């Protein structure tokens, strides 16, 4: 099992972001609630955390975000709970919900900006630019977006024939694997490997036969999901796993949930590290 920590890289990135960010020229003051971990990360990257008054439960990076009041999970938000903080702006992704809460917040006259769920190489830079523009930090956002794009351009991704199976589960009774059109699929493909399942889109329940048929070389899981699943031992005990290469060679890669699926400013780092892991296993 390979569990990688990007502490050093993150440190370097944070330092460079700090140096890049200078004082605001036309900064608009808001009372922001971020209902998505990646959005929160970008707000911190743009040094706008002084405007952040509350976050959702997916906002645990950087660590300081966890000390802010929590409004719950991004998809199960409550109107009154959010209005309690008297926000002027709510930032998140289009998947934020439930729809009734989003409608109620709009009706209450709160400005909402929900970004589309995209899984492209240019997604982090685009989100940075949009948030920067919205909050009057265009200059800093441009510098940060440029830095991200440069890092992406400088990436040397070696193509690999390895088949990677992304597994997502909170308990052993419901195990999901990712088909096409998901953040996990995009991450696997962008980092040079192949998704072991391409027959369907979105996340679908895992069946033993499908697992054996897919015969993945590597199992990729978000850290928190693996923990909830019962750890590495439980993963190898999934029916049919012993017939796959991943199961035989115990090739498991665990990555922090937000880092792996967030498509935030740390995208180049995680792509590079994943690609390095593919090369090692190959």
């Amino acid at each position: 099992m390979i569990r990688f920590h990007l502490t050093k890289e993150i440190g370097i990135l944070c330092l460079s972001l700090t140096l890049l960010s200078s004082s605001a020229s036309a900064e608009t003051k808001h009372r922001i609630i971020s209902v998505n971990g990646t959005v929160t990360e970008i707000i911190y990257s743009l040094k706008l955390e002084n405007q952040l008054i509350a976050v959702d439960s997916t906002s645990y990076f950087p660590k300081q975000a966890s000390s802010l009041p929590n409004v719950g999970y991004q998809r199960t938000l409550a109107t009154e709970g959010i209005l309690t903080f008297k926000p002027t702006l709510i930032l998140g992704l289009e998947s934020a919900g439930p729809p009734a809460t989003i409608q109620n917040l709009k009706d209450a006259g709160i400005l909402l900006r929900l970004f589309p769920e995209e899984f492209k190489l240019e997604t982090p830079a685009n989100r940075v630019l949009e948030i920067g523009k919205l909050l009057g930090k265009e200059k800093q956002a441009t510098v940060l977006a440029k830095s991200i794009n440069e890092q992406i351009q400088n990436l040397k991704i070696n193509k690999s024939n390895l088949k990677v199976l992304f597994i997502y589960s909170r308990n052993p009774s419901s195990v999901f694997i990712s088909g096409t059109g998901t953040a996990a699929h995009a991450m696997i493909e962008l980092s040079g490997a192949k998704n072991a399942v391409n027959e369907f889109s979105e996340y679908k329940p895992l069946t033993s036969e499908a697992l054996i048929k897919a015969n993945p070389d590597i199992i990729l899981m978000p850290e928190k999901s693996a923990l909830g699943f019962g750890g590495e031992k439980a993963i190898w005990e999934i029916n049919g796993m012993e017939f796959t290469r991943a199961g035989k060679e115990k090739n498991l890669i665990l990555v922090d949930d937000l880092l792996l699926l967030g498509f935030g400013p740390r995208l180049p780092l995680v792509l590079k590290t994943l690609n390095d892991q593919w090369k090692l296993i190959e």
Partner: protein
Amino acid sequence: MKKKIIFIIFCALFSIVSAVTSSLLGAMNIHLTDLFQSDSIESRVFFELRVPRILLGLMVGGSLAWSGALAQGLFRNPIVDPGLIGITAGCSLFAAIAIVLGTSIPFLHSIWSVVLFSFFGGILSSFIIFIFSKSKGRTDIFTLLLSGIAVNAICISAIGILSYIANEAQLRNLSLWNMGSLGGASWSNIKSFSCFFIFPILVSPLISKQLNVFILGELEASHLGISTELLKTIIILLIGISVGACISLVGNIGFVGLAVPHIVRLVIGQDYRFLLISTYLLGGGLLCFADGICRVIIAPSEIPVGIATALLGSPFFLSLIRKRINHV
């Protein structure tokens, strides 16, 4: 008689206390002085979110319990709830269609489309069951029940297929909807649907005497001059409209429709002149109170009210059943 009137007064007081308590509960601390400042966020939260939510809770809880009492009267069985005749499943299926396929069907894009589509589903399923149970101009209760079970099974399977093809966000919306929530309450949906919720109160006095006679048996009731066919049609129609409106607006809320009429029956007996009004008041009060608890228990987030109604009501329900067994 005196006991029954006292119980109705108790239920009415419980509803009022629940509404007042619920109005004080919530993520936001609202003081009385805030209410008089029209521009304050506290005043807007109170009048535009909390008050409609409390009213909706009272009306939906009342209507669900009231419909449960009617269903139990129709089947002459105290362990029946409106879900058994497929209305809830019909609503759920059509809501699931709107949630999962909404993005690809042009007229199913807004939140209102889920509500209206689900309402239509409830009415449609009750209509189908009603047609199936008709034979030689008569509505057969036994066939009605069997048709309800079949429609339930079909709807649950179809929801299963939709859950399977749903993406993560749709799946979460679907499961949230199935847990029931009053979070979507607003003055506009109260205005649009209140007629369906107030209607039960108005018709209760007109059908309660007939229902009392119907308990004796269908044949006996018809011998006593009751048009049982008309009564059954009216009851199915009332349950369809009432439950359809409730479920489509707030999602699946279990327990209230089954347990509240049962609780009332255990306390004051079968007399529908008192039973219907008591169940409406008690059901409304219970849902309203449960919703208040849901708003504060993990504030600023909320838990779905369907979970709380079962958690709050079940122990009380169990203790009443236990008491009854001990009496016997």
